[in-house]
């Protein structure tokens, strides 16, 4: 009897540990699928119009062009408004961020402090705008499953510099697309949400044509609308250099 009790307990512990491990593995697999889906194109060229809405509902716009190769090289340049035209930034692996200010005709590596500041007056931070793979930055845990979505809690891995203490990512089960991300600050308070909509298949790839970042503290929002997109156009590595950033 005593032997059976010990055996049963061992089996129960095994099942529990195995279950937890399986849960984590599932979460990691889901996040891996998200990364694979978001970074499926070899490269992409986007033209984006942003609409910034203040708490009174006043709207201002920006237009930018974005080139990305793989999951970790991205270059962004402003096309409008006129006073921001030509400003650009280059995001490379290893938290490597370079800013170009045409008025000074210079590029400069920017400090990590800039990553958590607002990107050109939008509700996105430079960190939000970086090219990245979530699996490299976050440890996921599956916290909710329903018929349509999974919800993952993402905790930054050790050594990752970020102002967010956790993210809640809602992923559409049908295509692994993250339809909503909630961002939490150091006090554990939800401070921003990113919602993706108008998700369409362009060629072989899924893409949200509209995203909306809402700052819950300031009650402002920024909508990004992709007006033009091209995939797998063979963007050269030379594009992701300071030489190109200054052109």
């Amino acid at each position, binding site marked *: 009897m005593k032997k059976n009790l010990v055996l049963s307990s061992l089996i129960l512990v095994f099942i529990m540990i195995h279950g937890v491990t399986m849960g984590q593995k599932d979460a990691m697999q889901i996040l891996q699928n998200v990364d694979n889906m978001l970074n499926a194109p070899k490269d992409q060229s986007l033209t984006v119009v942003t609409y*910034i809405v*203040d708490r009174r509902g006043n709207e*201002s*716009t*920006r237009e930018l062009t974005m080139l990305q190769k793989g999951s970790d090289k991205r270059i962004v340049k402003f096309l409008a*408004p*006129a*006073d921001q*035209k030509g400003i650009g930034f280059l995001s490379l692996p*290893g*938290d*490597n*961020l*370079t800013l170009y200010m045409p008025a*000074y*005709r*210079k*590029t*400069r*590596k*920017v*400090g*990590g*402090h*800039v*990553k*958590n*500041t*607002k990107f*050109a*007056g*939008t509700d996105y931070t430079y960190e939000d705008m970086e090219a990245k793979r979530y699996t490299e930055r976050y440890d996921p845990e599956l916290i909710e499953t329903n018929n349509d979505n999974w919800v993952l809690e993402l905790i930054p891995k050790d050594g990752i*510099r970020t102002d967010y203490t956790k993210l809640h990512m809602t992923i559409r089960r049908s295509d692994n697309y993250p339809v909503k991300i909630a961002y939490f600050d150091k006090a554990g308070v939800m401070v921003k949400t990113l919602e993706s909509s108008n998700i369409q298949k362009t060629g072989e790839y899924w893409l949200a044509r509209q995203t909306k970042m809402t700052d819950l503290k*300031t009650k*402002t929002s920024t909508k990004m609308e992709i007006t033009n997109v091209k995939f797998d156009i063979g963007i050269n590595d*030379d594009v992701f*250099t*300071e*030489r190109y950033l200054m*052109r």
Partner: protein
Amino acid sequence: MKRIFLLLLWLGLQIFGFAQEYGGASDYFGSVLENLNWDGYFYSDDRFGVTSPNKKMMFQEYRLSLKPSVKTRRTAFSSEIWVRSMPGGSITSYTQLSDRKKTFLTDVELREAWFEVYDIFAKGLDLRIGKQRIAWGTADRLNPTDNINPYDLEDIWDFGRHLSSNSAKLTYYKNNFYVSGVFVPAFSPSAAPDMEWMSAFMPEFSMPDEYDFNGINYKLINKSFDDFLLMPDKTIKKSSTMGLRTGLNIGSFNLSASFAHSFDVMPSPSKAHLTDVERVQDKNILSYNLDVELKYPRMNILGFDFAGSLATVGVWGEAALFFPEIIQMAVDMRYMGLNIRVMDSTVIDNKPYLKYVLGLDYTFPHNIYANFQYLHGFFHENGTAGLNDYFVLAADWKVFQEKLKISPFNFCIQVNDWSDLSNEYAWILLPEVTYQPAGGVELTAGARIINGTGSTMFGKLKDKDHVLLKCKISF
């Protein structure tokens, strides 16, 4: 001349080559016209003095900047034209009112116009020719290594503003490494500020106040002063500026090293002529007119700069080691029946001296940004003993989605002599508020409050406190 002709011919062939890539010259120029962009801005700047005796309009500029530019796959053209209206004040008679050049002072200036060809000789090799700004250094507006273009000091508060130079720049890029050579064939001087502000940058020298002649001691009194600015000979050797800069990225840092064969920013007195020497009323007093020759000393400058991130703090630094040409002032007293006499007055020693700047910036919560720099040696200072210390803080708080920028604590402190701080200091407070009522529109109100001792650069301007109103509309 033959070489220049060959170079122009070769460039023409290159452009022809590009045209062929576009399917012919008409297609190429069609592509150029299709890609022509017209950007620009309107800018107004009004400043009103608030301290006696300068309670008046101190500065006014209305500027229209036009920036036509073209980019094609392998070429680029960029330019900037300023059309400006500046206050006149040169009218002295009723009849001059019909002279529009005197009643409306409009100034048209080609600030930049250059043409660039990418991958010209080989992949990664870019050539840019034309009137261009070559900005070296990584610090924020205070750049000791930025010595290719002359300074534009017309507005001394627009720190770091330079004129463009007619020049050629050839840069080779390979991965995250580059090397760039610059050649400016002809010297052009820095633009000086208005006479009211000039005192801050005027080169200082002293003349003897007495002189022994035939056993009699004469007191010397200066009646008038005039200066003659000697420009370098127009030969390539004597007039050109050239430089080499190389840099690379290591991790999250930019590093670069440079060499420039250039000129000092401000001219130095090299010879003084005493003319119209007269004895005053049979006393042992001689009065004279003073004519001073000024020349631009040659400088060789070795530079190093870096910028990057330590933890989350942005850091940068620049150092420039100057190897100046020695300048000794000679006093010509031939008008007193004497030969030239070289006084023991070395204006610029040929000993090397080091200027440097260290800076850091950080963004605090609530969008508060601070930028601090320590500078040893302002752009016009030279000689180890002539370099002063400057501490500059720029801090702003952006609110309402960056539509309002409040900068109450911008300041600069100058210290000339740490052992005599009470007599050798100056400070400036530069509070500003900037509001963006609409995209591309920027309104700025601010003040510049200056205090300090008369021996310091900014102390010389202490009676020029002013308030300002600026407007910029970009299109």
